[in-house]
């Protein structure tokens, strides 16, 4: 009997959903808009984070060694550095030959430069270790440690100073976007709750005469309420699907503009997250609809 009643209330909610035409359309549009704004701020958050991540991956500290330091000695230092796993994510050895190849490649194998290098007769470049830190704030510490270490005499120079500004800037952007994103996201979620709640209240208001009638023929409050809860869930579900479609469209559209700024193409990054986006937005939409309905109908349910 309970299942039968549940099914009947679901059917009634579904009927209301389909029969109300314009009201349904308006409600779904408003919820979609709210969800879209929230998702968009999340999307912007993801883009910013991945751009920052990508930039962070590109910065490093390069330690160049004096020409007389042997490769064995450098490998020894490399092993030493590799032990600091908490601070250092990778250490890469670039030999003098590799450095030269890279230099020539970077200059586009310009014949004049190639000629000039040949004239010098020997490789003018130094061997180096390229160090990447786990977090940008680790760089000053790492540099200090290297400078005061036992192999300080082997070092020709550390190109940290010129990167320092980039590190600080990245740090700052990272913190700011997180804070702004959090504040905006919270604000948008709050606004969307208000908008959804009010919209659903209007749809329920249009049914207000029915509540009295239903109670008079012996319907329990729960039986009166359930169709609206189902109706709210349907609004949320449809709005969520519409939102995901919109957001996917936006992701597809902005993907070309982020080329180079993020490591993989943005659309594939988005697809990686698609499961979360879909389930997150759907869950948010349905809860918004259900909670708004349940609260909005309360005032009409005196016994």
């Amino acid at each position: 009997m309970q299942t039968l009643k549940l099914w009947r209330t679901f059917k009634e909610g579904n009927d209301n959903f389909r029969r109300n035409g314009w009201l349904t359309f308006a409600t779904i549009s408003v919820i979609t808009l709210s969800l879209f704004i929230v998702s968009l701020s999340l999307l912007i958050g993801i883009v910013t984070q991945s751009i920052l991540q990508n930039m962070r991956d590109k910065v490093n500290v390069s330690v160049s060694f004096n020409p007389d330091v042997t490769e064995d000695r450098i490998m020894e230092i490399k092993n030493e550095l590799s032990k600091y796993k908490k601070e250092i994510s990778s250490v890469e050895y670039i030999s003098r030959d590799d450095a030269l190849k890279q230099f020539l490649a970077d200059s586009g194998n310009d014949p004049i430069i190639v000629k000039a290098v040949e004239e010098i007769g020997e490789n003018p470049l130094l061997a180096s270790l390229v160090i990447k830190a786990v977090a940008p704030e680790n760089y000053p510490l790492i540099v200090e440690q290297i400078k005061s270490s036992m192999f300080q005499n082997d070092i020709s120079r550390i190109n940290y100073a010129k990167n320092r500004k980039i590190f600080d800037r990245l740090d700052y952007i990272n913190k700011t976007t997180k804070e702004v994103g959090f504040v905006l996201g919270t604000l948008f979620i709050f606004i969307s709750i208000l908008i959804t709640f009010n919209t659903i209240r209007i749809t329920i208001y249009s049914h207000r005469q029915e509540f009295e009638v239903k109670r008079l023929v012996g319907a329990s409050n729960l039986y009166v309420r359930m169709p609206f809860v189902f109706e709210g869930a349907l609004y949320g579900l449809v709005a969520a699907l519409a939102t995901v479609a919109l957001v996917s469209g936006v992701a597809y559209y902005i993907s070309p503009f982020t080329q180079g700024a993020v490591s993989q193409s943005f659309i594939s990054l988005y697809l990686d997250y698609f499961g979360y986006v879909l389930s997150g937005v759907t869950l948010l939409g349905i809860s918004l609809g259900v909670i708004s309905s349940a609260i909005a109908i309360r005032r009409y349910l005196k016994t």
Partner: protein
Amino acid sequence: MPDIQPIIYFENVAKTFPPDHAVLEDINLTIQAGEFLSIVGASGAGKSTLLKLIYAEEEPTAGEIYFNGRPLSRINRKHLPFFRRNIGTVFQDFKLLPERTAFENVAYALEVDGKSTEEINQEVPEILEIVGLGGKTRKFPRQLSGGEQQRVSLARALVHRPKVIIADEPTGNLDPVSSSDLIQLLLEINSFGTTVLMATHNKNIVDKIGRRVIVLNNGRIAHDHNKGKYVLN
């Protein structure tokens, strides 16, 4: 309480709406099962409030109302929906669900009770046939005349086979022919043993029925006659 258990019994009932608007005062009323009772009185005399107290839409400020010997104040609010299924209600404005057909409106009263679809499909057409709407089960309220809408509402009130039918100005929006048809139906229902309580303004109808009449005046029972006529003072 009287010796023979009445179906409805008012014991020193008063109803005051905030802040201090006394609508009913000192009401003592015994209604036996199977009676046909008309309640008359000027607008604002308290007719509707008296009826609302019976189906527990309002609570008395003082006194007690018994339904079948059971004090209404003891009914848990959660159980009110079940209690209301003992009483069928008919109103001046019909109170039909506009988005549902005649059949669906009547069926709703059974659906809330958890009746099976088979039962509903059997009982609803029967009851619509009884009120003379056998051919109009699929019409929406807006496609029906006032008299027809009121008969849908009566069918809905009857479908539970309630012990009591409460009709608050049932003919208020009906033309004389529809009114007299509806009263005829109510009398028929009463003849099968259902208690009928009707509040009305309609002098002709009350005089024609020739059954018990109580007259409310300023919230008090001014007259109570067994073969009553419509008198206001």
